[in-house]
């Protein structure tokens, strides 16, 4: 297309085209920047652990037969029993807890109920902090301690959250002993629906029990009855702030029991995240471990 004597105009045209494309590119990037949103473009072939793990959902396997394998999120050998307790909890929710929460909502304005929720959250700091330590999450630990000190004092016993509102130190992810066990490689075990308490698992039920030892309310000078009263109050308070999540699940899902079970399993797995220190792998000698490191023939170059 370019004739020799046209070289200059040709070059000018190309330059103009380059500029056009450049300006388009830049303006589109700028448009993305304008919203102040971080944009990360990963070249298609590149392996990016974070992206690939987040994407995880077998999209790459869509066309091979990985779809034949049924995904079990959590095993449920006690399903009949669990369904019984689920039914019981459902009735407890609709006929006792929810009506009480509605009445409570009328007595206390929302801002006050949020403050009560804050105080409960603040008191439970030792539980989260202890589990931060056990999972080497020192930044979270420091954040928890800072928030605890500031909110307990300036925030009037944790009713308010000046640590976040004034100092900008936001909440970090909750940690509990179930997650700590998961951090070291423990799976769900099996699904459990506990009466009154609700969805749990073999691992998380143990976790909740262990966590009570770090719960300051346990050591308060109150009777057992009062202790459960405080716990119930916390539940009623949080229900009063909830936007009918459970009602929505019951209304919209084909089988609420199955929906809650799947959601529980997924949520706990997400909370635990990547397992860095799988003790079960470390403590069991894998075959290839023997093969590769203790096979003298391999040392000799076979």
């Amino acid at each position, binding site marked *: 297309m370019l004739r020799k004597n046209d*070289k200059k105009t040709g*070059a000018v045209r*190309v*330059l103009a*085209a*380059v500029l056009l*494309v*450049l300006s*388009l*590119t830049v303006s*589109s*990037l700028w448009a*993305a920047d304008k*919203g102040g*949103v*971080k*944009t*990360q*473009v*990963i*070249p*298609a*072939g*590149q392996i*990016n652990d974070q*992206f690939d793990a*987040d*994407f995880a*959902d077998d*999209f790459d396997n*869509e066309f091979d*037969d990985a*779809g*034949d*394998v*049924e*995904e*079990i*999120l959590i095993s449920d050998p006690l399903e009949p029993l669990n369904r019984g307790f689920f039914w019981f909890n459902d009735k407890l929710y609709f006929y006792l807890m929810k009506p009480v929460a509605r009445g409570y909502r009328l007595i206390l304005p929302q801002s006050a109920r949020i403050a009560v*929720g804050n105080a409960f959250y603040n008191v439970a700091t030792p539980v989260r902090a202890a589990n931060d330590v056990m999972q080497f999450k020192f930044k979270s630990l420091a954040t928890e301690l800072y928030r605890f000190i500031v909110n307990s004092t300036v925030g009037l016993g944790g009713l308010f959250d000046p640590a976040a509102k004034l100092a900008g130190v936001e909440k970090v992810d909750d940690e509990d002993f179930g997650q700590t066990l998961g951090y070291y490689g423990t799976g769900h075990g099996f699904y459990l629906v506990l009466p009154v308490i609700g969805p749990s698992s073999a691992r998380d039920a143990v976790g909740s029990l262990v966590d009570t030892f770090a719960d300051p309310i346990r050591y308060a000078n109150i009777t057992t009855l009062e202790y459960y009263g405080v716990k119930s109050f916390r539940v009623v308070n949080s229900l009063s*702030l909830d*936007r*009918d999540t459970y009602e*929505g699940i019951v*209304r*919209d*899902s*084909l*089988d609420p029991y*199955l*929906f809650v*079970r*799947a*959601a529980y*399993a*997924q*949520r706990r*797995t*997400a*909370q635990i995240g990547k397992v860095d220190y799988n003790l079960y792998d470390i403590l069991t000698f894998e075959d290839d471990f023997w093969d590769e490191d203790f096979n003298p023939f391999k040392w000799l170059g076979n």
Partner: protein
Amino acid sequence: MMKKVLFAFSLLLLFAPMALAIPQPQAEVEMMVSSVLDVLQQEKLSLEEKKAQVSGKVQEFLNVSSMSQRTLGAHWQGATNEQRQRFSELFVKVLEGTYLNRIGDYTDGEVQYLKQRVKGDKAIIDTKIVTGEMSIPVQYKMIYVNERWQVFDVIIEGVSLIRNYRASYGEIIRKEGYEGLFALMEQKVIAMQGTAGE
């Protein structure tokens, strides 16, 4: 010199479409969310009117065939074309009903767009719904098909909606067969329409 310019030009041509594609996935999510919020935040409309107006708006942003296929998972292979078709139709209605029932609760929320990641034809958009007392992380997974970005999964607080459906529906199919599932879905759709005015 000429060659260099041409080379630079071809490089740009190569990368420009990619660069141009960057803002799109998140823009699609934003369009979807705001098209719904715009309706919901009109105070004059009754909830019923709002739902009628929102209905159908979300569908074009979703990749329904991909969502249906993923939801049935292993059972997609075993289904006849008719069953697949029937499932897709019912599933869209269930999804829409669920969405419409829930969205009303979060109209006062503000949606923050945190991050978008694009890798080839896949994208992950991180957002957060912030209301007075809580903030809920919501992640959208998207694929690029038919020259646009479409959502095929929503992950709320680490819970993938599609995965949840897959686990529940798979179990229902195993126990009651496809027809059992369809019957349950039909019942649900009717029940949802019944409560649409609440």
